[in-house]
């Protein structure tokens, strides 16, 4: 099932979901929960290091401590040589099979109801050192599924080191298009497992916290500091893009911010060389109006916890664990205007554990769990005459729960590998299993038919390459 198609058809057919889509941006929300893959050899050329120095398993985006510092230092660390061109490109091709064919209403244009092969994305990056203290990670992507171009991600930074007594502190400023894009750990929305996922996969439920569902539709300025190689703090202010900018970047409208959205992050990081860990807090707050009809604003307040652990050792056997929990309190003054109770909340838990052998062979297990209050106005379509649910969650809850299994092979990306610094590739298989989807073990699909959560179980073969 294609998420954008899901949203588009829902928009056409159902008044309740129209209201939701207009204000909560469900299509964008779901689309943003499908992660975009990133791996950038231009950084390897710039630093002289192999991909495996920065990335667990020899391929992006899971960062090692060296990669964490590279990002915090503003993508500017280098081997001292000038003349490096900060350009890279990437392509993801995949083949996807879902346990049951997609409903007619959810078929993706140009594709079959099942068993699809697609060049899912082709990206060009401006990624690397632009000046002494300025670096970038900017990605423009062509989607071979949606068949459109878009500004996928943008993070342009200034960073420098200061001395505070006998301690060192790196401070920086980032201009970026996504609240969690700037984070150096692999626990928050943009950078956590799965690092690539099929566009034909139905995603992780009908809702996601705002902190991770605004990508592309906003612009933020973030200030951050990394003190004594251990304490990371970040504060960002975000606003929606103008209609004109949305058209230029071809990104999703996230509504009109009333005031500024505020993103905050604090984390403790300890690198013991053989292993490392981090834990932290993050939060986001925004009031968002309907752009076409500004009036009362929906209020979103997110608060989350996260933690990570990596055992790196001599890099032959690498174990990692990442986890995050977010609660979002919503006051949907606009979306649910006139309803008895405009208060809503969702809870999201995500975790992943991985093992990589010789920075070549990898296996990862991920868990996802979304829960929320029952709210038929948000998660179901109800026939006004009969009062029966015609589409969506049967019990009115968004609850979606399942697991992801991935095995992958990364033959290059190590010191001495063929094409080191110029080319890398990962081949893998990923299986997503659902225990709950849209509230329970069954829900009503967009054809109005009962569909089991496990009917969405998805197997994907992927080839992910970058130069």
């Amino acid at each position: 099932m294609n998420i954008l198609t899901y949203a588009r058809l829902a928009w056409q057919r159902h008044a309740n979901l129209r209201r939701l889509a207009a204000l909560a941006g469900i299509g964008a929300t779901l689309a943003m929960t499908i992660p975009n893959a990133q791996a950038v050899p231009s950084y390897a050329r710039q630093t002289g290091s192999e991909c495996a120095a920065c990335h667990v398993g020899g391929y992006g985006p899971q960062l090692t401590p060296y990669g964490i510092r590279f990002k915090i230092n503003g993508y500017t660390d280098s081997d001292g040589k000038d003349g490096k061109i900060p350009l890279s490109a990437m392509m993801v091709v995949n083949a996807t099979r879902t346990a049951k064919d997609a409903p007619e209403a959810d078929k993706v244009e140009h594709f079959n109801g099942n068993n699809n092969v697609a060049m899912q994305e082709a990206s060009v990056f401006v990624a690397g050192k632009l000046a002494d203290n300025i670096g970038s990670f900017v990605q423009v992507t062509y989607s071979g599924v949606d068949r459109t171009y878009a500004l996928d991600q943008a993070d342009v930074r200034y960073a420098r080191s200061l001395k505070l007594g006998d301690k060192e502190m790196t401070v920086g400023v980032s201009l970026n298009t996504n609240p969690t894009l700037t984070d150096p750990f692999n626990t928050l929305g943009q950078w956590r497992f799965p690092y690539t996922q099929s566009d034909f996969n139905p995603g992780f439920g009908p809702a996601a916290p705002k902190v991770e569902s605004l990508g592309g539709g906003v612009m933020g300025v973030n200030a951050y500091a990394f003190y004594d190689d251990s304490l990371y703090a970040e504060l960002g202010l975000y606003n929606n893009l103008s209609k004109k900018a949305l058209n230029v970047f071809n990104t999703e409208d996230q509504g009109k911010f009333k005031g500024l959205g505020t993103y905050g992050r604090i984390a403790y990081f300890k690198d013991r060389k053989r292993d490392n860990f981090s834990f932290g807090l993050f939060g986001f707050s925004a009031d968002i109006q309907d752009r076409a009809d500004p009036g009362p604003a929906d209020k979103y307040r997110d608060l989350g916890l996260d933690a990570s652990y990596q055992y790196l050792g001599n890099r032959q056997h690498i174990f990692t664990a990442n986890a995050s929990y977010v609660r979002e309190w919503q006051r949907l003054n606009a979306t649910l205007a006139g309803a008895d109770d405009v208060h809503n909340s969702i809870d999201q838990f995500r975790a992943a554990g991985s093992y990589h052998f010789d920075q070549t062979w990898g296996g990862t297990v991920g868990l996802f769990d979304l829960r929320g209050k029952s709210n038929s106005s948000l998660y179901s379509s109800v026939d006004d005459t009969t009062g029966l649910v015609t589409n969506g969650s049967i019990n009115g809850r968004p609850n979606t729960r399942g697991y992801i299994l991935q095995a992958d092979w990364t033959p290059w990306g190590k010191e001495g590998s063929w094409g080191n610094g110029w080319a890398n590739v990962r081949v893998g298989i990923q299986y997503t299993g659902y225990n709950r989807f849209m509230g329970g073990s069954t829900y009503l699909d967009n054809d109005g038919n009962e569909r089991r959560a496990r009917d969405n179980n998805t197997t994907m073969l992927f080839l992910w390459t970058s130069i």
Partner: protein
Amino acid sequence: MKKQAISLLFCLSATLLAAPSWATGDARKGADVFAEECGDCHSAAAGKNKKGPSLNGVFGRKAGSVTDFSGYSEAMKQSGITWAADKVDAYITQPRKVVAGGKMKYDGLGDAAARADVIAYLMSVK
């Protein structure tokens, strides 16, 4: 003759006991230490510079002298160090103390045995 043998054994033992720890390192263990502590920024391969210069053939080399590496600090270039095992040992124990103003962001390796191992490894790849 017996007295001479005892004296020789005594002298040999004293020499071994007085030997610096880096002289007894295990190169195989040192390869693992290198991967854990040094390998992100340095390569042991000849001519392969990363954020730091290649450490292949470092012994006997003047500090800041790898010709195709341009990332040295002035402090390193002016340090006057010629890398020998004792100098490397001191430097990786407390880099900022030995080369104040150097660029290397490394707090140091406190474990003398691990330093000995990594020095033995670097000697083995010269």
